[in-house]
């Protein structure tokens, strides 16, 4: 965890949720910078711990280990599951938090290893939110199925951290958890924050655009960091839960701006899941976006 001054703002960094996290605070007061960083880190850790699929005693771990028994969840989890259900419904099944089991077949390590068709097909019966009984704060997950809130959790953590910081710190700030971010408002002097969009070809080394952002959430979906090369094609890590295969023909990256990070993240994922139809979808939704 580190906090340093850059020009006239502070930037704090830590690692959480399997990625680099940053917080930018437009202030001259180091204690306020510290406090914002501390709040962001606490909240990121809390959410990671609570919803990690790797921890058996997390909410998600408990559900995944339920062996088909109904599990009663707490309120926060219930809200996340409600949200996931809405996403499943509006995406007509493309956005599915049960698609994580497919990862047993796919390893997105930049290599060209593609699983056998039969392996993928063998996993498909364990995919589908439609098979899950959810209601009255109780989830019954058929044995062998798993849920993964990774597709929502990071954005949720961004918005949660942002609202906690906003309640304590008067300064403008940006919360950025692994590229999903939220800006709280204009910087001193009314300036926007400048958000670079990562170049999918040279990830981490270059940006392809700068987006001025004053207030709201911004999230990007794409194959920049995790992909597989198959017959000369890059297959991104986002899988189509209906086929079990990576989405084909999708743009390299889809960046969406929305009032909250959760909404931006969901929209960018939904767009990406539509493959070549991403642009059309976002245009029809009247969203603010950028496609590479």
């Amino acid at each position, binding site marked *: 965890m580190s906090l340093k001054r850059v020009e006239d703002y502070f930037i704090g960094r830590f690692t959480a949720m399997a990625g680099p996290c940053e917080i930018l605070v437009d202030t001259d007061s180091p204690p306020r910078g510290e406090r914002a960083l501390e709040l962001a880190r606490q909240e990121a850790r*809390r959410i990671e711990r609570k919803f990690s699929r790797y921890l058996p005693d997390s909410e998600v771990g408990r559900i995944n280990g339920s062996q088909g028994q109904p599990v009663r969840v707490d*309120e*926060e989890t219930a*809200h*996340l599951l*409600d*949200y996931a259900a*809405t*996403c499943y*419904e*509006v*995406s007509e099944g493309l956005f599915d938090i049960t698609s994580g089991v497919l990862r047993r077949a796919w390893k997105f390590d930049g290599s060209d290893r593609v699983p056998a068709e039969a392996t993928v097909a063998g996993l498909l019966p364990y995919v589908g939110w439609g098979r899950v009984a959810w209601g009255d704060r109780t989830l019954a997950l058929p044995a062998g199925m798993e849920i993964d809130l990774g597709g929502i959790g990071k954005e*949720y953590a961004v*918005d*949660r951290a942002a*609202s*906690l910081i906003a309640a304590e710190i*008067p300064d403008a700030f940006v919360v950025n958890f692994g590229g999903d971010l939220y800006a709280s408002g204009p910087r001193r002097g009314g300036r926007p924050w400048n958000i670079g969009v990562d170049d999918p070809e040279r990830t981490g080394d270059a940006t392809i655009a700068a*987006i001025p952002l004053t207030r709201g959430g911004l999230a990007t979906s794409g194959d920049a960091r995790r992909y597989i090369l198959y017959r000369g094609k890059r297959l991104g890590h986002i899988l189509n839960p209906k086929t079990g295969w990576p989405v084909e023909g999708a743009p390299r990256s889809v960046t969406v*701006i*929305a*009032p*909250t990070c*959760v*909404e931006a993240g*969901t*929209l960018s994922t*939904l767009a990406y899941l539509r493959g070549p139809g991403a642009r059309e979808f*976002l*245009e*029809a*939704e*009247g*969203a*603010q*976006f*950028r*496609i590479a």
Partner: protein
Amino acid sequence: MQLDAPERPRAVRAKLRTATCLLLTAVAPRFAHAADPPAPPVPASPPTSQIDLTGLFYSERIRVLEPTMRYTRTYSSGRSFFGQVSVDSVTGASPNGTLPTGRTQTVTSASGRSRSVSANSIPTVNFSDTRIALDGEWQQPVKMFAFSLGGHFSHEKDYQSEGVTGRVAIDLNHKLTTLSLGGGYNNDVVSPVGGTSVGMAPYGELTGAASNPKHVKTALVGVSQVLSRKWLVGVSASLSSEDGYLTDPYKALSIIDATTGIPLAQVSEQRPDTRQRRSVQGDSVYHFTSNILYLSYRRYWDDWGIGSHTIDARYRLPVTSAAFVEPHVRFYTQTAADFYRFGLVQGAPLPQYATSDYRMAGLQSVTLGATIGFAPGGRRRTSEWTVRAEYVGQFGDSSPPGTVGVQTRIDLFPAVNVFSMVVNYRFNR
């Protein structure tokens, strides 16, 4: 670059928006806040200011140019204040009350000059005057009450007026009914140029008083009632009591020959020194689908014997969201004062009170006009223009009973035709 696309939530996004909102406001574990610090106070919305610039151009026998500036400041608490300055420049001629002669007649004037008039036209006095008026009002809502207090001062070379008004409006019946009570007091001084004439004595004879007091007390009670979503009505009654010098210092009457009708002499007019006025007015505003009809009717009486009816109708038609047209029509009719005489006949004893001021005669007026309003800034209404053009015609009895000789051949009440134009420019900050 799609980033400038306007935000229009569509099907999927709208559902997500609602779902996100519920997710993010969901109950989450409380952090270790001993006590929630109160939220930083929301700054009170700054007071708004409004400036009105108005010009009135008015033609008749009198030309008036009346620039007015009004400054209104409204605070977020509902308190408001306005201050206004207006300057009237009046130049022209006003009938002096005497009769045409058939011969050239000499007339003295308010400014001391004299002028000849043609034989068959109504003699007039020439005058030129500037009136400066200051008005202010302060309003304060307190729960169901709204108090207002106003002050007035005006000055012109022969007339000075100071007044105060107070008013309270009470909202009743879930604000569907508003009762208002008000009162005012004016303390005026009339200082005729050239001295105060002795009433019913030969014109030019003076009392020696340089100035003469006049007091006006007014009381008003009104109720307004919302009848439906589209209809508001109101009734109000006012009572005013005047005392002091109520005579027009520049008006005279002609004494005419009983058979030829030729004016022989002039006497200054004299009116009673008290006057009780009463009026009742009903108002209605009705909102049609988009147009609005304003109707009002006033009945007026005073103890000088004048009674009048006034009907006023306006119909506002929005042209766009920021412009409207409003035709206006008004009818007015009054009966003459008990002591109104077109002239006095030689030989008869002089009455105690008499005036031949045409405004004390039986008369009718018709007003036709239209107002156009538009706000160039569109719906935000940072500035608004209002332009109104109007015609007022006044008609009376051209040949009142009792006219004799030459007077029977002359129009004793020539129609008065006035065209006026008002331009109001308002800007809000």
